[in-house]
């Protein structure tokens, strides 16, 4: 287990380093002279030369890469052209909102997807199965921004049940300031007993989280269904049946245990996918998170910001994969007890 952890950590570090280099390459893909962009359109050739020297663009590429990697490691992720603030500060202040949205979507995905998958497997090729499968296809093929607009129009616009946009009531925040504990607004409101803010944050989170959850629900239901159906032919399932367990218990208490690991691994994939999907959702709900930041940066070609978002999300994704693999190893007795 220790050797496994060490190997897995090393591999993740290597991949993370690769991603840093990849972002360096992406930043250099920008057409034209980066120094010209930095110095502004009216800069004289001398000024550009000075900027080029300042940015280290006159030195050999490999030195630039080493400098860049060093900067990233030291927490120097550059200055945003748009907000004129350090990119890393910008990102870290927005991350909790996005994380909250993604985790809420993932939670809904598990709470709805696992039972739905079990239901479909239990009634294989019958009506519940057909319904779950169709719903999963629809859920996975809906453009997330479009679903966001539909739900926003219906629940916030037509029914006026939920707020249209934002992350909380600004007035309410003035009255009930939110203490910072974990950084996730929902959790902070909960642990500090700030009920009015909790309600406000929850109301604002519900619709975006539902939209983000469409994909997790769909893929988790499909995976649980497929993996449970896969195990049904195995001897230990036959054995449990021969012990007199009802089919519901056979699936829900025995077969489903074998889906835990595939579902767990899928969670890492979903986490990465939802992180980026939430970008589109944030754009619709005007929800202050990484996505809105990335979208705004992309349209004005704020290269340090774009590269920063890419790097941060990729690192989060690598970390999620690492955690999932380690949890997987800890959960599976065949690996843990080797």
């Amino acid at each position, binding site marked *: 287990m220790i050797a496994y952890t060490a190997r897995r950590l090393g591999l993740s570090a290597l991949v993370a380093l690769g991603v840093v280099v990849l972002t360096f390459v992406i930043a250099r893909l920008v057409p034209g002279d980066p120094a010209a962009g930095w110095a502004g359109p009216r800069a004289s050739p001398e000024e550009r030369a000075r900027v080029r020297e300042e940015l280290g663009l006159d030195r050999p590429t490999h030195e630039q890469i080493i400098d860049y990697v060093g900067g990233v490691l030291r927490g120097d992720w550059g200055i945003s052209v748009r907000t004129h603030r350090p990119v890393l500060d910008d990102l870290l202040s927005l991350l909790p909102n996005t994380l909250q949205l993604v985790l809420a979507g993932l939670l809904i995905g598990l709470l709805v997807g696992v039972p739905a998958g079990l239901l479909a497997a239990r009634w294989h090729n019958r009506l519940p199965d057909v319904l779950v499968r169709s719903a999963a296809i629809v859920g996975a093929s809906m453009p997330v921004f479009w679903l966001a607009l539909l739900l926003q129009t219906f629940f916030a616009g037509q029914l006026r049940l939920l707020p249209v946009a934002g992350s909380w009531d600004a007035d309410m925040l003035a009255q009930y300031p939110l203490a910072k504990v974990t950084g996730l607004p929902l959790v902070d409101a909960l642990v500090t007993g700030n009920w009015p803010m909790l309600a406000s944050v929850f109301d604002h989170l519900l619709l975006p989280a539902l939209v983000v959850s469409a994909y997790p629900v769909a893929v988790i239901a499909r995976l649980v269904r497929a993996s449970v159906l896969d195990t049904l032919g195995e001897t230990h399932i036959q*054995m*449990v049946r*021969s012990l007199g*367990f009802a089919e519901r218990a056979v699936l829900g208490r*025995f077969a489903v*245990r*074998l889906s835990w690991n595939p579902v767990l691994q899928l969670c890492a994939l979903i986490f990465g996918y939802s992180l980026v999907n939430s970008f589109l959702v944030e754009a619709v709900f005007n929800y202050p998170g990484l996505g809105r930041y990335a979208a705004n940066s992309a349209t004005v070609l704020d290269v340090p910001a774009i590269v920063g978002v890419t790097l941060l999300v990729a690192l989060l994704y690598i970390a999620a994969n690492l955690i999932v693999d380690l949890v997987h190893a800890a*959960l*599976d*007795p065949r690996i843990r007890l080797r």
Partner: protein
Amino acid sequence: MSTAEPLLAIRDLRVSFGERTQVELAELTLGAGEILGLAGESGAGKSLTGLAVLGLARRAGATVTGSIRLAGEELVGAPERRLRLLRGSTMALIPQSPAGAFNPVLPVGTTVLRALRLHRGAGATARERAESAMRRVWLDPEHLARYPHQLSGGQLQRVAIALGLALGAQLLIADEPTSALDVTVQAEICKLLAELRDKEEMSVLFVSHDLAVLAGLCDRIAVMRAGRVIEARPAGELVADPREDYTRELLAAVPRLGGATHA
């Protein structure tokens, strides 16, 4: 084994998949404290007979007609709810491959305890029952906490038998229980089953293609071919003086008859 009603009585049993009839048994009985061997090549319908007794043939897509009586109770056509109750508590399966017989991510004891709670309700006695059953199959109760991959094939097979014992099953349906094990372990399992028969009046329906194993263990042997029983007689008699050519062929296919039969 001459009680008025045998523990298991099969009459006019027919198991078919669509048009194809796989099993056609006119009569087959098994008394309390008896081990009945079911011999034949693969595809002869032995395992399917076992599944039919457990009431699991129907869910595999087969049509079952005729009569299977267990302790006087008709199983064919019985409601699924009743069958579930009988499965485990009255009859239990000893599977073919012990390696795959337990959920790989659960300790084997979890399955045992869950089954005990299902049939005998919640209670502190469940653990005791499980542990005493383990001792009856010559296993350390500590093994209940182990995962399947930590136990050997023979140990797993004994846990499977313990499972039946703990639940109070009177009939074990053993589907080729020894064919995946090596010879010494095979002998050990057979010895265990014989002891359970002698000491606890356990009945066993022992399905195997290996006449040598059957001859050493069973009270009676029924030879199946193409879904029918062609010969069913006391084991010694059948081995010493087979009436059917097919039985003779099966016997001839056993290379070490005489050597390994003194289990």
